[in-house]
């Protein structure tokens, strides 16, 4: 496949590994923020090929994993509402709430439809005027402009049986929180590739400067990830702390202005509750006033739920903060498996625990 296969070339990978080996010495902790990077790393087996001194830590970049339990329970309550048809990305189907999951609710007779695109969810609303379609808006800045477009279309076309349960979150505030918490000694960030296509490399300049942290925006193929590691090592060696773009073919300093404009037209930033990280100010997206009619929480009067207690012994929070690895969780691989997950980290296809389990 064009623009994929060339970047998976074995010879290029070997060359990069040799160079990384040459430059590595002191142990370094590099965090990959994006869940899709975690998956890519595990699928290709890169970790086993890197020198031991390079420690790749998975961060909280899995939008499903960081969805607060209270939000999951709210989604399940919506699913149980007989007027509602839930439309959702497949990732959400098996996420466990306090007592159930969308998959289980579907088995019990609730209408839950997996879709590839939010556009398909809007079309579903058009095709089925007798039901209220609620789209579960989960995802970071890569996905938010798409949902913003669909909400904007719904308003323009006056499709009243459509709404979204909004759980969108923003990446840079979470990165800042991790750095402020100082739980780990980080030497650099592999920044998310497609989030950066939207927000641009300038979004990380503050972080690089304030925390003296090398930030390199990475593509998703093995050569991309390895080149990013190399760029981070070089910065470390040179005592630098800059924002660089490895993924030049898809990321620009200004990001995608049209997408950002759509995002800002429909959403404003506000508090968001991140599983494992707590409430982070200005880290979530909320629908602006003209679009309140498309806010499922308002439409269906979802009462603010006291943060439901996360299952004890579940180490998802620490895993998301990069402080623990899945094998350190007492439940991992024993009580908590992809078939019977305790927390979202095991359920989400790119959750750290799922990746460790599948690709160990």
């Amino acid at each position: 496949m064009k623009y994929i296969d060339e970047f998976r070339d074995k010879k290029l990978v070997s060359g990069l590994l040799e160079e990384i080996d040459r430059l590595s010495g002191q142990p370094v902790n590099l965090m990959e923020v994006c869940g899709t990077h975690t998956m890519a790393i595990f699928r290709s087996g890169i970790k086993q090929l890197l020198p031991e001194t390079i420690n790749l830590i998975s961060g909280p970049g899995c939008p499903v994993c960081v969805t607060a339990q209270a939000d999951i329970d709210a989604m399940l309550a919506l699913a149980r509402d007989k007027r509602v048809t839930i439309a959702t990305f497949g990732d959400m189907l098996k996420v466990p709430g306090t007592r159930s999951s969308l998959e289980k609710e579907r088995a019990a007779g609730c209408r839950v439809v997996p879709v590839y695109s939010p556009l398909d969810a809007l079309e579903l609303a058009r095709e089925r005027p007798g039901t209220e379609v609620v789209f579960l808006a989960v995802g970071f800045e890569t996905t938010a402009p798409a949902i913003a477009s669909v909400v904007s279309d719904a308003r323009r076309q006056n499709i009243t049986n459509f709404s979204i349960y909004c759980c969108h979150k923003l990446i840079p505030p979470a990165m800042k929180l991790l750095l402020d918490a100082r739980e780990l000694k980080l030497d650099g960030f592999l920044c998310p590739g497609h989030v950066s296509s939207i927000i641009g490399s300038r979004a990380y300049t503050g972080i690089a400067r304030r925390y003296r942290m090398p930030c390199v925006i990475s593509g998703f193929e093995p050569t991309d990830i390895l080149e990013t590691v190399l760029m981070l090592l070089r910065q470390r060696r040179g005592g630098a702390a800059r924002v660089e773009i490895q993924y030049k073919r898809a990321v620009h300093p200004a990001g995608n202005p049209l997408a950002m404009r759509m995002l800002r037209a429909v959403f404003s930033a506000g508090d968001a509750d991140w599983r494992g990280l707590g409430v982070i100010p200005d880290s979530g997206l909320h629908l602006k006033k003209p679009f309140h009619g498309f806010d499922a929480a308002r439409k269906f009067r979802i009462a603010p739920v006291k943060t439901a207690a996360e299952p004890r012994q579940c180490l998802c929070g620490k895993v998301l903060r990069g402080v623990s690895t899945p094998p350190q969780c007492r439940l991992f691989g024993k009580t908590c498996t992809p078939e019977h997950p305790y927390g979202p980290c095991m359920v989400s296809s790119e959750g750290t625990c799922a990746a460790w389990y599948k690709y160990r």
Partner: protein
Amino acid sequence: MNNTARILLGHGSGGTLTHQLLAKSIFPLFDNPILAQADDAAVFSLKGATALTTDSFVVQPLFFPGGDIGKLAVCGTVNDLAMMGAAPLYLTAACIIEEGFEISLLEKIIRSMSRAAREAGVTIVGGDLKVVEQGAADGIFINTSGVGSIARGRSVSGHGARPGDLVIINGHIGEHGTAVMAARQNYKLTTAVKSDCACLNGLVDAVLRAGPRVHVMRDPTRGGVATTLNEIALQSGVQIEIDEEQLPVTPAVRGFSEILGIDPLYLANEGKMLLFADPRSTAAALAAMRGHPLGKQARIIGRVTGKGEPLVVLRTAIGSTRILSMLTGEQLPRIC
């Protein structure tokens, strides 16, 4: 008024309507002397070791590029027998049909079953027909059972894999899974990929005639190649290593998988078989496969690396390894 001839609850009551339906739409297409006896059971003689299998088919949509539920129902059972080294002989077909189902569609499915059976050289000697209320079945469910004879020296089992065995597959993976998922149109993806649905008994016969020492044969249906390899690893108590670079995947199946974020190793195949052969026999097995229309793309994709804790490992395209586990749950499109 709707003039389309449809299945009524009465067609399942065993009375005149049932007999009329069987006489008009089913028996003529499955025409054979055993069925013509119209007795409560089919009577025949079998010599030697006999294999018996059953499978139920609930695929949606009922008609998809490359096949339909009828063809699938015949090939699925024929293949299960063939994988055991048995020559498939007789099949039964039991249908549970939803009230309101168009009779012309039923006839289309029966014709398809008849054609598949004829091409595979098997006879449908019995069956059943029931009708359930609207909503109680997804159009039609079909169960087929089949018996076959195992010639001496041809017995194969999932327990037979041994360290050193080479793993062969007869062609491209993931075609049936892709064709059916695309045909459901849930994700608005269009592709020219056709289901690989086919009866493999001819291919198996060609291989076994060539005389190679075959230890395991299995068709990687639901759950895909990865799941089937895990099943064999468990049954035989072995470790298997598969080479990612050797896996035959067409560009379209790859494209489909990449968009949805799913893995071709977990997509269903309905015309493919995995074969574990003694390394000295591999050349003969490959030649026999490649000489058959259903095996032209046959290749070695891996080997059994040892005995012990069952494990399936993938050697990745960049030279590393990772564990290939069984499929857990459905494969769904993801954004992450």
